[in-house]
């Protein structure tokens, strides 16, 4: 008997027992619904985490400190006076920069400079303001209201201002600020840390306006300048032309480098290395645990529905003894009888899988509602559906249903036609 014929007969016999078919499929649908939602929430959670990470730091930037010499070994306190080295020798210097640069994948090693502005103004005739000036050292994503940044880096002479500052500076909107000049005054700082009368006016051009997003973990309104400008200003302010003692270094990795490998390589050279990966991985792990937890619940529902299918199929076989006997009398082979019942189970799996998936997709329409409840930024969805996942899930449902139908279908195949056709 051809597969097509068996499929059609299977479908018809299910259609002839509508209530029973609907109930059995619903059992599977519940499981399919739960699993689909779990996977969608997991995907949404993962995407949200990546979004958070992007705006909270630079994935390809490693933060490096020297290993504090106080900790000789990890088994308790170190005695005072035993270690001769002072804190100064814990500082990193040019040699360290070269060592780190030699590691595979390291493209650049940047140092952080802090600058101290005295005032900020749009120029002659405008008010003078005080605000923090941030030196942007890595490629952390900035969410922009206007303007653009190449590779999330500020160009030399460029300035990014926070949206919060627009009205104070007299800009109507973010767009109108682009291209405008801002002057920042930096005083010379003498060795006794007091500001002298000498100062320099640096003129910057606004290249972008940034703002906070809900996904950003750390945001502080500021004026942001490039690392090169920061270095120049720092040198001017401290007079330290050839400063070579650093507290912290940032290693910039080439895109595509294995971050964990590079991290270990640098750490092996006796440094403390931190990357955003650690936070990211912890967060992703939490999302995944939640996701698989929900999938487990859904799987329990599916397990329960399997028993339902086995039961329903056994009853179906008993009910249709005569039909089976007839088919055997007409010359149908055992395997086709078995297939008939297995395909019926497959149909039930298919219907249940489809129903569950479609219901889950409909639940996805509630995304805007969910985002509102969880206070997510508009456009960020908690439930993210993947067509490939859904199709795979339906196929798995069909396979599970066929397995559930295995024993009843064997019973059907083994039926003795003479017994089956005997009427009392």
């Amino acid at each position: 008997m051809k597969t097509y014929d068996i499929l059609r007969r299977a479908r018809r016999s299910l259609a002839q027992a509508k209530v029973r078919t609907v109930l059995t499929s619903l059992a599977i649908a519940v499981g399919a619904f739960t699993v689909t939602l779990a996977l969608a929430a997991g995907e949404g959670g993962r995407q949200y985490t990546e979004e958070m990470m992007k705006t909270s730091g630079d994935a390809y930037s490693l933060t490096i400190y020297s290993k504090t010499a106080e900790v000789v070994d990890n088994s308790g306190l170190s005695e005072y006076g035993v270690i001769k080295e002072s804190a100064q020798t814990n500082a990193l210097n040019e040699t360290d920069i070269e060592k780190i640069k030699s590691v595979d994948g390291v493209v650049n090693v940047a140092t952080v400079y802090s600058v101290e502005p005295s005032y900020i103004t749009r120029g002659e005739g405008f008010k003078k303001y005080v605000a923090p000036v941030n030196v942007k050292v890595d490629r952390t994503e900035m969410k922009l209201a206007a303007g653009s940044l190449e590779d999330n880096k500020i160009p030399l002479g460029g300035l990014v201002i926070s949206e919060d500052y627009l009205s104070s500076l007299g800009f109507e909107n973010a767009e109108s600020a682009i291209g405008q000049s801002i002057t920042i005054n930096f005083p010379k700082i003498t060795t006794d840390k007091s500001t002298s009368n000498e100062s320099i006016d640096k003129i910057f051009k606004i290249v972008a306006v940034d703002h906070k997003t809900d996904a950003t973990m750390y945001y502080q309104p500021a004026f942001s300048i490039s690392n090169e400008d920061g270095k120049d200003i720092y040198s001017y302010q401290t007079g330290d032309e050839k400063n070579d003692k650093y507290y912290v270094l940032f290693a910039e990795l080439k895109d595509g480098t294995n971050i964990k490998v590079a991290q270990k390589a640098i750490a092996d050279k006796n440094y403390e290395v931190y990357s955003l990966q650690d936070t990211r991985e912890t967060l992703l792990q939490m999302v995944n645990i939640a996701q698989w937890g929900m999938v487990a619940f859904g799987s329990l529902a599916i397990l329960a529905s399997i028993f339902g299918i086995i039961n329903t199929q056994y009853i179906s076989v008993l009910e249709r003894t005569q039909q089976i006997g007839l088919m055997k009398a007409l010359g149908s082979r055992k395997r086709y009888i078995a297939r008939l019942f297995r395909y019926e189970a497959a149909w039930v799996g298919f219907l249940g899988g489809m129903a569950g998936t479609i219901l889950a997709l409909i639940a996805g329409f509630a995304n805007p509602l969910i985002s509102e409840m969880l206070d997510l930024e508009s456009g960020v969805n908690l439930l993210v559906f993947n067509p490939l996942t859904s199709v795979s899930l339906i196929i798995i449902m069909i396979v599970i249903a066929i397995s559930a139908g295995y024993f009843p279908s064997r019973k059907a195949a083994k039926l003795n036609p003479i017994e089956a056709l005997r009427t009392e």
Partner: protein
Amino acid sequence: MIEVKNLVKTYGTKGNLFNAVDGVSFVIPSGTSVAILGKSGSGKSTLMHIMSGLDKPTSGEVLIDGKNLMLLKQKDIDIFRSNKMSFIFQSFFVQAKESCYDNVSLPLEIANVAMSRRRAKIESALAAVDLSDKIKARAKELSGGQKQRLAVARAIVNSPQILFADEPTGNLDSVTGGMVEDLLFGYSKKNKVTLIIVTHDFDLATRCEVQIHLKDGKIDSINGLK
């Protein structure tokens, strides 16, 4: 041609053995209508089951056109049955919830007949039993007589060589029964199909060319065979 040689079918356990069929032999020429007569318990149904390959004898042989059924594998017996034999039962056994079309289509599906050729065969089978107007109707909407006619249509749709009928008119009134009998004998004569009717209805038996009387598993008498 159907040749039955020393068929024996034994049931039961040691000490309690019982021969349902006890050494039966005969030869039926192709195209003959045969009645297997006997009271209930005479072994007539068992004999039919063995002749059609639905059951295996304890000993003895069944040769159909020279082919020894006992030597065939189950798969080949099934294929043989689907192509060369068909059945009609006392309780009709039509599939109530399916349409008449799908009922009659079943033997064609089992025999792997190409889909393009099925419709014509089904329509002509239904026409032969005068049920053309019911082609889309569900079998459960038919009367008893119509159901048995549907069963006949199903039995003839794949042009079998041997038609087995087990008390075909047992559940029908005499008028309807007579119609079904006419259909069967008419078809058998026209197409030279061997018709084997198991019955305890004497009147039906005498319409057949051959009557084999069974009593307690043995042949009591045979009429009509040369």
